[in-house]
């Protein structure tokens, strides 16, 4: 990881005073786990260049890393790329220049716009070149991007994921460094440390005077802070004008999807901005591609409401199983339905289950609320706790099961669990063309999506096999010729007819 700063033209030598680095000496500091070095490569009246680079102790680097139990822990780009880590390593070497302090006689140079060349890298970023340019060009830099070598003898990638930036502009040294201190962390793919309010302070300090005007202001802030809790705390004076999306979940989710730790809920149904591997295509963070047209009520919400309504009308609804409950968004709404006494929210994914537990704890503060019981469960196992319930719900679940595994799951549900009412929803694949989707299915974990005819035929066949009556309907805005976005089947057990 390195940064070369070159000043050309009149007064270039003043750079050394602003940096407070004697051109006669090499700068070499070893701290715990890293070593910072600096040398000049040219020092003439009209051309001065310094290179600053950091080397890490690779063994020390991975100690206590959250990736300690991943095979790739020693194969780590953190050792090489510029990131917020780099910024903090070189903070003390660049301290004087960043603060704009120097000997009195050189003070005028602090505000002098040098003809500067800033070369830094390697850079590991998911931002396409076009976005990288749009980060720096508004700050009056010429941007030159250099790529690493990829000549592999087998087909692996078209372009290297290593980039090196060369910025040219007339800018004061202090401002140039401030730009880098905000934009390098924003460019980088992930953060190395725990983040708190101090990150907002840093943005305020280094972004002073330019960040609020930057056209990509909100993207920079979100990329820098990552977590909604932090983003929400950003003071208004730091936010640019285009901040109407600031608090919407969607843009946050869309932006955070690039990060590795983002958990995709299996319950997300709408086509939405996905993780974008391709760097150049459609990376438009400032224009979220949500079907945000007008639906004030999302399809998710409509589905929950429809299911709640169906359950409210059922004669028997004391005990309910929400099978594949995810983060409990549906389960949590069932606790207010009169007569309901027990809700089992069954889910095999720990992260989702933990979110559900949090959600239930919040909801159970209401009077008379029946808090759902989170249960670790799975379609591929048998669990006698789910037998003979009044209602079982499989909301947007079956499409996550491999089609060839579905029959055994259904046998367990119809044959062993035997709920009085079974409610099932699944996407209507015919509707996908309304979404103008590129992909075949609405979520990358969907193993299949069915037409109305397919779902009806499938439902009827199970119903007749296990003495259930089935009623099929749709949820969401109906479109002539394609039906509703969501299909729903309500199976009612025919008592006494059981085979």
């Amino acid at each position, binding site marked *: 990881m390195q940064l070369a700063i070159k000043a050309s033209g009149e007064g270039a030598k003043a750079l050394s005073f602003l940096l407070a680095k004697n051109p006669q000496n090499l700068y070499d500091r070893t701290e715990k786990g890293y070593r910072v070095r600096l*040398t000049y490569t040219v020092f003439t009246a009209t051309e001065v260049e310094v290179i600053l680079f950091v080397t890490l102790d690779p063994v020390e680097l991975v100690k206590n890393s959250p990736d300690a139990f991943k095979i790739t822990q020693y194969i780590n*780009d953190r050792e090489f790329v510029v990131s917020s880590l780099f910024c903090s390593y070189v903070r003390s070497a660049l301290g004087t220049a960043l603060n704009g302090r120097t000997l009195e006689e050189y003070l005028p140079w602090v505000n002098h716009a040098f003809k500067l060349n800033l070369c830094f890298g*390697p850079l*590991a970023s998911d931002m396409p070149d076009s976005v990288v340019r749009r980060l720096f060009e508004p700050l009056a830099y010429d941007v030159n991007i250099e790529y690493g070598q990829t000549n592999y003898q087998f087909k*692996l990638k078209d372009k290297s*994921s290593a980039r090196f930036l060369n910025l040219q502009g007339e800018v004061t040294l202090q401002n140039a460094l401030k730009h880098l201190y905000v934009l390098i962390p924003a460019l980088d793919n992930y953060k190395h440390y725990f983040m708190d309010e101090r990150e907002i302070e840093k943005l305020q300090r280094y972004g002073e005077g330019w960040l609020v005007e930057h056209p990509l202001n909100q993207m920079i802030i979100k990329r820098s802070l990552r977590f909604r809790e932090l983003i929400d705390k950003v003071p208004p004076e730091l936010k640019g004008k285009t901040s109407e999306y600031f608090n919407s979940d969607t843009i946050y989710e869309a932006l955070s999807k690039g990060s590795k730790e983002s958990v995709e809920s299996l319950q997300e149904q709408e086509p939405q901005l996905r993780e974008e591997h391709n760097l150049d295509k459609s990376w438009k963070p400032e224009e979220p591609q949500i079907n945000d047209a007008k639906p004030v009520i999302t399809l998710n919400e409509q589905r929950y409401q429809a299911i709640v309504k169906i359950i409210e009308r059922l004669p028997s609804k004391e005990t309910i199983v929400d099978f594949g409950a995810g983060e409990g968004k549906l389960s949590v709404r069932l606790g207010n339905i009169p007569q309901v006494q027990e809700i089992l929210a069954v889910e095999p994914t720990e992260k989702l289950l933990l979110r559900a537990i949090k959600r239930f704890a919040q909801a159970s503060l209401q009077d008379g609320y029946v808090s759902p019981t989170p249960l*670790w469960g799975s379609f*591929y196992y048998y669990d006698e*706790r789910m037998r003979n319930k009044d209602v079982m719900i499989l909301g947007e679940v079956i499409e996550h099961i491999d089609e060839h595994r579905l029959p055994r799951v259904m046998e367990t549900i119809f044959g062993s669990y035997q709920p009085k009412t079974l409610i099932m929803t699944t996407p209507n694949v015919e509707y996908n063309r309304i979404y103008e989707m590129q992909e075949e299915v609405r979520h990358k974990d969907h193993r299949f999506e069915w037409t109305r005819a397919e779902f009806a035929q499938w439902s009827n066949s199970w119903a007749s096999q296990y003495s259930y009556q089935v009623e099929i309907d749709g949820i969401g805005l109906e479109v002539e010729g394609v039906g509703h976005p969501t299909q729903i089947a309500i199976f009612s057990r025919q008592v006494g007819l059981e085979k």
Partner: protein
Amino acid sequence: MSQQIALPHAGIVLLVGPSNSGKTTLLNQLVEREVLLRSEIVSSDQFRVLVSDMDYIDLKKHSKDEQEVLYAKYQQISQSAFEAMSALINTRCALGKLTVVDATHLWPEDRKNYIILASKNHVSAMAIVLDLPEKILLDRDAQRELPRGRNRINQQVRNFKNNLHSLKTEGFSTVNILNERQLEQSTFIRLSNPLVKEAGAGLDFIGDIHGCYDEFLELLDKLGYNQNEEGLYVHPEGRKLVSVGDILGRGPKSIACIKFFQEHVEQDLAYMVDSNHGWKIARWLSGRKVELTHGDEKVAAEFEHYEHNQGKEATDRFKEQVKNFLLAAPSNLVFSKNGVEGIVATHAGIRDTYIGKQSNTISDFCRYGDTDGVHEDGKPIRKDWFAEHQSGEIIVWGHDPNHQPLVVNNTINIDQGVVFGGRLTAYRYPKKAFVWVEAHKDYAEDPESLWHKWKKERFSPPNIQSFLSGYSVNTEDYGEIRVKEEYVKSSIEEVSHYTVPIEELVYIPPTMSPAPEPSSLQDYLEHPKEAFDYYRDQNVTKMVVEKKHMGSRAIFLLFKDEESAVNYVGSPTLGTIYTRTGRPFFDQAMTRMIVRQLNADLTSAKYFAKHKTDFVLLDAEALPWNLKAKELISAQYAHVSEVALMDRRKILEKLEQAQEKGWDVGSWIEEFKLKLGNAKVFREVFPKYCWDTQGIEGIKIAPFHILAHSEQTFFDQSHIWHMEETRELAKLSDLFIETEFKVVTDEASEQEAIRWWQEITEDGHEGFVVKPETYIARNNKGRIIQPAIKVRGRKYLHIIYGIDYLQPENLTRLKNRNVSRKQRHALMEFALGIEGVKRFVRTESVARIHECVLATLALEAEPVDPRL
């Protein structure tokens, strides 16, 4: 006339009679004549001494006050001595030993306790009563060192006489009352246990025949029995048959089966134990009111038919014989070889304390098994008695139809439901081999039968509650393996989202450790020497080294045809290919293409026919690396190599400029030249394992273990065998490649192997794996040892330990690694893998197979240094 008195082989014998009757004298004689062992005799006097060091108290010398104290003390000691003696006798009874109690036992209350003790332990209680004239007793008393005195003797005799008449009704199995003359004329002998037989030239245990006489004869033929002139089936080696019962009922030819065993048992050519169907028919033949159901009505019909042909008189005679034969069948039989009672036959089950004993309770248990009430539908709730078996014998049993012989905890179920269309199984002892014949048809056609229920439920989803809070698996090779809740849960999550279907997920390959010690060479982290040293330390002298392919681990389950799969995985499929974490290796289309290709290749080479198998289960490495790991290679290895090269080149460039202009950065330049070199090695290494593939073109599969065929596993074969067999496989399909290997037995072959390793690893190859010759190897303490040790090359390890791992300051630190956890995991996962595959081959339930698989996944979820 002399009288013979037979002492039982086990149980309690009480001597009854007043002091001076000669009880102790008699017992001493019996010990001398070797009828009894000294340790078989206990007496209250002996226990009084044992608990209190006091034998006898002479009260006469003491004052009245003192007498009272002493008497109370004496009472207390007597009571304690009695309790200690009872405890000892109880233990001996439980172990099936004989105990003779030498005391007066004048009162029924004195005797009652022993009758209860004996009955509780399912052994007999016998009384030998010495009824001598009072005069003799008094004469003898007078000659004693410490006479009891006339009064006491008088009193004892009175009590004895008064209670003598009730003795016969107190519950003793035998009561012998002997007067002076009778005692003199009696000879005492010792009976042996009627339930213990000699294993002789060998035994063939036969599962539940249920009237399938034709299949039975077929099996006898397969076992090598020939019919002699008298029509009896004899084995040339003198082997004998042992039926675990239920020879009749449900099937077509019950009478033929009964006749067979009646004759052969009579001729000492066969044994048969009691069973539920046999007992029911015996009671029916005894004229009891029994409802003949569950196929027993077919036996009645056969008798009717018999009567129709043979007439009533002959039939009645025959029925009487059959009744006696069935009633005489013992609940269990124990067979001994070289004096060791090694194998037990019973029908439905037995407890360890019942072995070799008879009682009504035991008979019931052996007939019906361990039942605990009944289900709603009236079926008994079965408990797994075999889980508690600890006493070492092999227990062979039937009753519960299982698709394959169920071997659990030294118990073997050999009822494979021939009458339900399954198989008739024989278990050969001491060879420990199974022989079977297929049923000609499903005779019972009973959809409610356990067999059908088992067939239906075999592929039912496993019960999640038996796993959720952590659980244990009993493995044959490692014993109990416990997995923790948190890791089980995360594995269930994995199975719920990503793996191939549970039914097809039958084996997860175990992890593999490097040698416990890092290389002693300065610039190596791993070297073959330490692996060879490890095995030598474990007393392994012959090793197999196998080239380690650098690709991705893949398990191949390939079926003969789609239909054959139904019996093993519950639905038709040509096969499945999955990764070491159980996920599908390829997408569906690609899987289908490869499986089809392999199926076509193996079929045209007649692989399945030649090996008489429905499937082959292979442990393999699939190449190239980028086939599966393209994303990882691109995002991690290639990316890091690109940034490292870029970073180091750029820095070096700038430093060289600086040097040119006079700055003293020479040492920095040296450092960066070296580091750039390291980055170049790294860049060179990882693409070695990658090449382009087009469809199935370019894909190479290197199988190295043939885990199983449909009738057998191959864990008993050496690694040389596995290498040779996989080499044969490689000839059958272009997709398969063979794995180079060498055998190491001495210094020279070891050096040769090391040279080979140097050569291939310098070329960037991953390295090799050192294995003991046998698949399952144990050291001389009997402990299972590492099934394989990997030795990775110097260059290859760059992609594991990092670009600069060979820099001395890094290498010395990296050598401080600890492999003990990894090794423990390797052993447990190895044992679980074997256990799961064995269960799969025995076509046990999905739940039983899955508990092994899930446990391995859970162990793999535990944090272990992944670089090892």
